[in-house]
């Protein structure tokens, strides 16, 4: 029998962490799909990775620095062009507290 990795409740919790609302129908559908996908991901347990270092990216780069020089900034009007809700020179945010 197939293992269940995630319950509907788990999915609700992770979606909440990711700030994504899900409909009732989606919670059921996603839970099933996630369990199928995680069943496939189980494959990675077969390979021995003892003493292997992780590769975060393939380049031989450490930190890339540049001179801290001031260059002209984008005008406020342009920077705010894509803001859905604004007031004067500000982005209008939802209630935080």
């Amino acid at each position, binding site marked *: 029998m197939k293992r269940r990795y995630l319950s509907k409740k788990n999915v609700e919790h992770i979606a909440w962490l990711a700030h994504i609302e899900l409909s009732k129908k989606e919670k059921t559908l996603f839970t099933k799909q996630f369990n199928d996908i995680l069943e496939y991901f189980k494959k990675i347990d077969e390979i021995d990775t003892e003493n292997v270092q992780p590769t975060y990216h*393939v380049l031989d780069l450490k930190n890339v620095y540049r001179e801290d020089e001031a260059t002209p900034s984008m005008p406020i009007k342009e920077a705010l062009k894509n*803001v859905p809700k604004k007031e004067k020179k500000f982005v209008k945010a939802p209630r935080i507290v």
Partner: protein
Amino acid sequence: MTKLHATTAKELVERIRNKEVTAEEYVLSVFERIHRLEDSIHAFVTVTKEKAIEKAREIDKKISEGKPLGRLAGVAIAVKDNICTKDTRTTCSSKMLESFVPPYDATVIERIKKEDGIIIGKTNMDEFAMGTSTETSYFGPTHNPWNLSRVPGGSSGGSAAAIAAGEATLALGADTGGSIRCPASYCSVVGVKPTYGLVSRYGLIAYANSLDQIGPMARNVYDCALFLSIIAGHDPSDSTSAKAAKRDYTKFLKSSVEGLKIGVPEELFGEGTSGNVEKQVWAGVHKLEELGASCKVTSIPSLDYALAAYYIIAMSEASSNLARYDGLRYGYRTNRDNGDWSTVYSKNRRIGFGAEVRRRIILGTYALSTGYYDKYYLKALKIRTIIRRDFEKAFKEFNVLISPTMPIPPFKIGEKIQDPLALYMCDVDTVSMNLAGLPTISVPCGFTAGLPIGMQIIAPPLHEDLMLQVAYTFEQNTPYKNQKPPLK
């Protein structure tokens, strides 16, 4: 003489330069083609006709005044809609960015403009590049020009379909796990995923930034080499940009594979591979053998773990990269936003993102969460090290590796979209090169029942020259580039 819309970039630049045709005439012929075919193909999200005609006139003026011309002078170029274009909306085929207008050009766009290329529009794609079929686009699917009921591949499906249908001469794609090569294969065009870092990602909207790479798509290998020469090269705006010397890749296009050693990894002909695909790719390998290369079957066992490792890494990076879409500074924002911040963000992200994007963000969040980080994310990164090492080993024995690009021919629109895992499986032959950062090209290598098949040529990092040479030799000695889709 070849019809204008079917001309290659190389030929076109010469004809415009020699005043056989004006840039404006040619661009108008491309838009005439777009106008005629878009209802059935749907390769574009946005078409920029006025700007393109204006640019064409500028080029024609330069010619009449005898001013120097760029290397892409007059060529109509389609751009995948996840690459930022100043003052032209860039949507990632998502409702989230439906009306996002970037205030700057990506570095690749600046380089195209500097060489007098003409941008004709933004192409359809899987939403945020998450898909293999261009079906997850918020704007609806793109249709394969070879068979309109089939998918064009993805995620750069619009770019490939536009070239195949004669709606563009060159196109930019981006490849995270096969997104250039898959549609190139499915639409019988040539597509290059360069070495990670060779082409600047500045202005490419991130999906999985340690895997993403912009690359050229075209009707033939020469055009890809020309286009790559222009977009490649170090960019200080991208901290992961490789410090590789700028090269003219067209200089390496000689028709010869004499003495080259080609490896054929058996893992890339796995159990899901269609018999016809296998047969056709092997015919391609034998062709290269006939032309003087030596070929040998080889085994890279870690490739069997590439798909799972890739999806874990890609989803994890996606969950982090896409956290920026809160609907505040740009992107979709609901009108019912009088709730607290968390509820508003969650609503914006539910309505703004399609199902596949939400699935990947949620699973990526899970793979990075406490208790599962080591089990999934870290484990996948270690497998990535092993795969990279194994490729290095293989390249000690072989100059290049060859495999099918896709395990199966283009499937029907709607056939797999309900089953995410079945779609993921289609990426089985393409993801490992992103994990290892290797340059890979897909070239047409035949047809089965009228549907295109593509062959991948994989080279060591920064050996685009060799990769292109093998691809060019293959193309010169096979008839596939001359076949055109059955469109009116």
